[in-house]
C-alpha cells in the first residue's frame, strides 16, 4: 500500500513553501513512499524508556556575557539583498498581520 499520496505531497510543498511541477510531485511521491516504507522497519525496535538523544555530546549550554560588539554596517547587512530600498530589505506587499507589522510575539498571519 502507498504511504503518501500526491495530495499529501502537495500539502507538504505548501508547508515547506516549495513550488513543485506535476512531474516533481509525481516523482517526489514515489521517492518519499519508498523511503517511508524503508524507515518503517524501525517500528519493530523497542525504544520504551529510552531518553531521546538530541545532542551528540552531552554538556550544559554555555552562556555569553551580555556585551555589545560592532554591528554590521547597513551596507554590509544589505549587500547580499536581491531587492532593497533605501536601508530596508524589500518584499512583495505583505497583507498586514498581527500587530500590523510583526510576527514574533504574536503568531504570523
Amino acid at each position, binding site marked *: 500500500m502507498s504511504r503518501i499520496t500526491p495530495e*499529501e505531497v502537495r500539502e507538504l510543498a505548501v508547508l515547506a513553501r516549495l513550488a513543485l511541477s506535476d512531474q516533481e510531485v509525481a516523482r517526489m511521491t514515489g521517492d518519499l513512499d519508498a523511503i*517511508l516504507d524503508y524507515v518503517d522497519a*524501525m517500528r519493530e*525496535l523497542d525504544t520504551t524508556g529510552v531518553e531521546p*538523544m538530541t*545532542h*551528540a555530546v552531552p554538556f550544559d549550554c554555555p552562556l555569553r556575557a551580555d556585551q555589545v560588539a560592532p554591528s554590521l554596517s547597513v551596507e554590509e547587512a544589505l549587500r*547580499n539583498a536581491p531587492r532593497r530600498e533605501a536601508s530596508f530589505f524589500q518584499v512583495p506587499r505583505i497583507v498586514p498581520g498581527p500587530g500590523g507589522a510583526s510576527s514574533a510575539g504574536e503568531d504570523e498571519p
Partner: protein
Amino acid sequence: MIAARGASLVAIADGVRAGTVGAREVTEQFLDRVARLDGGLGCFLKVDAEGARRRADAVDAARKAGRDPGPLAGAPIGIKDIFCTRGIETTCASKILRGFVPPYESTVTARLEAAGAVALGKLNMDEFAMGSSTENSSAKPTRNPWSPAHVPGGSSGGSAAAVAASLCAGATGTDTGGSIRQPAALCGVVGMKPTYGRVSRYGVIAFASSLDHPGPFGRTVEDAAALLEVMAGVDPLDATSIPAAVGGYRQAARAGREGLAGVRLGVPTEYFQPGMDAEVEGAVRAALDELGRAGAKIVPVSLPHTKYAIATYYLICTAEASSNLARYDGVRYGHRTAEAKSLEELYTKTRGEGFGTEPKRRIMLGAYVLRAGYYEAYYGKALRARRKIADDFAAAFSTCDAIVTPTSPVPAFKFGERIGDPLQMYLADILTVAPNLAGIPALSQPCGFTKSGLPIGLQIIGPALGEEICFRVGGAYESRTDWHTRLAPEAA
C-alpha cells in the same frame, strides 16, 4: 622548487618554516597545477589566486622578519564551498546561494589562515552536502582522478579529488553521514571526521546541525592530523563546541610507526554483510592482518543496532535539513525569483527554482516527519534509536580501543549509476552514518586498489574525544604500507 605532485602537507610546511622553499613559490606551483589540470577534474568552484598570493607573501614576510609563520606555513589547501569565507562567494554548490558573499569568516578557515595555511579557492560538493557522489552539485560534476568515468564520492568530492590530484596538499570538508570519509576512500586519500563539537561549526553552512562534523583531508595520516590540530578547539561562537583540550594528533600519527603493542582493535560482524564488494572486503581483511602484525590484538565486537542506522540517520538529517534550509527565501541573500506577485510566490518560486532535486526531497521528507501527529512515530523514534546506536559503541569500546571496518561497501561507481535511485544512494552510507549519530571520531585511509585501479578505504573508529587512537592506528598501518604513495594518473 618542490615536487608538488604527491607532496605531503607537513613536508611543505616544514620546508617553508625552515626557509628551504618560499610559500609564494609553492603557491605558484599549485596554482599552476590547478590551471593546467582542474579543467578535466572540476574540483574548484572558485580559484582565489590573488588572495592565495597575498597570504603566501604574508607567510614569507613573517619568516624573513623572524616571526613564527605558523605550523602550516605555506601549506596550499582547498576549502569546501560550505565554509563561509569573508569577501569570497560561498554557494554550497547551490543555485539558491549564487552570488552570496559572506561578511564573516568561518572559525575553521580563520584558524587555518592564522596558522599560515594558504587557501587556493573553494571546492565543489553535493548541493548543501546532500549526496554521496558530488553529482548533486548545481555547478558541475567532479571527476575521480583515478578514473574520469567514476564519481569522487561525496559530498566533499571536490576536496577529496583535489588532494588526490595534488591540486592542493590538504583540504577542509564536512561529514554529516560520511561526506569526508566516503570520498576520501573513493579517491585514495586520508579523511578525518573528529568528535562532534571538536571542530567549530561557526560559518559552516548547516545541513543537519546535530550531525555536521567539519574535518580535514590529507594525503597522509600526519597531514590530516596536522590540519585537525589547527582546526580543533572550543569556539565561543559555537555553543556545541567542546571545551576540552586538543590532543597531540601529529604526535599520535608518528607514534603509530612504533607499532600497536597492547592495542585492541574491534571488528564488528554487522559491518561485513552481503552486498559488500569482494575486492573491498578482501583488502580490508588484509589490512586487519597487517594491523595484527603491527602488534594489535584483533577482537570481534557487536554493534547490534547497526541495521537501524540508515533509517535513524535519514529521519534526523532530513528533519534538521528542512529546518536549516527554511532561511533561503530570497529576502536577505541569494537567489530570488524574477516573478513574485505575492509573498507566497516569493517563497514558493524562489525555493522551487533555487533548490535542486535532493534538497527538495529532504526538505519534504523532513517536513513530513516533523508534522504534528507524526513527530513521535518518526523523529521522536529516531532520537531514541540514535541513543541505542550510540550505546552500542560505548559498550564495544569497553572491550576494544578502536573499531576497524571498510569505509564504503563499494569502490567508486560510474556517473549516473545511482543518481536515479535515492534510496540505493542512501543505503551506500551504511558503514559511515553510525559514527555521526554517536558523534565519535572516525578516520578513512587508503588500504588498496581494485583490479581496475580504484582506491579502497579503511575506516578506523575511535571513542568520543579519541582522535589520537585513530591517528595512531592509521599511522601504524600507513607506515607498513605504500598505498598512500601511489599517484593518480595525470594528463601530461
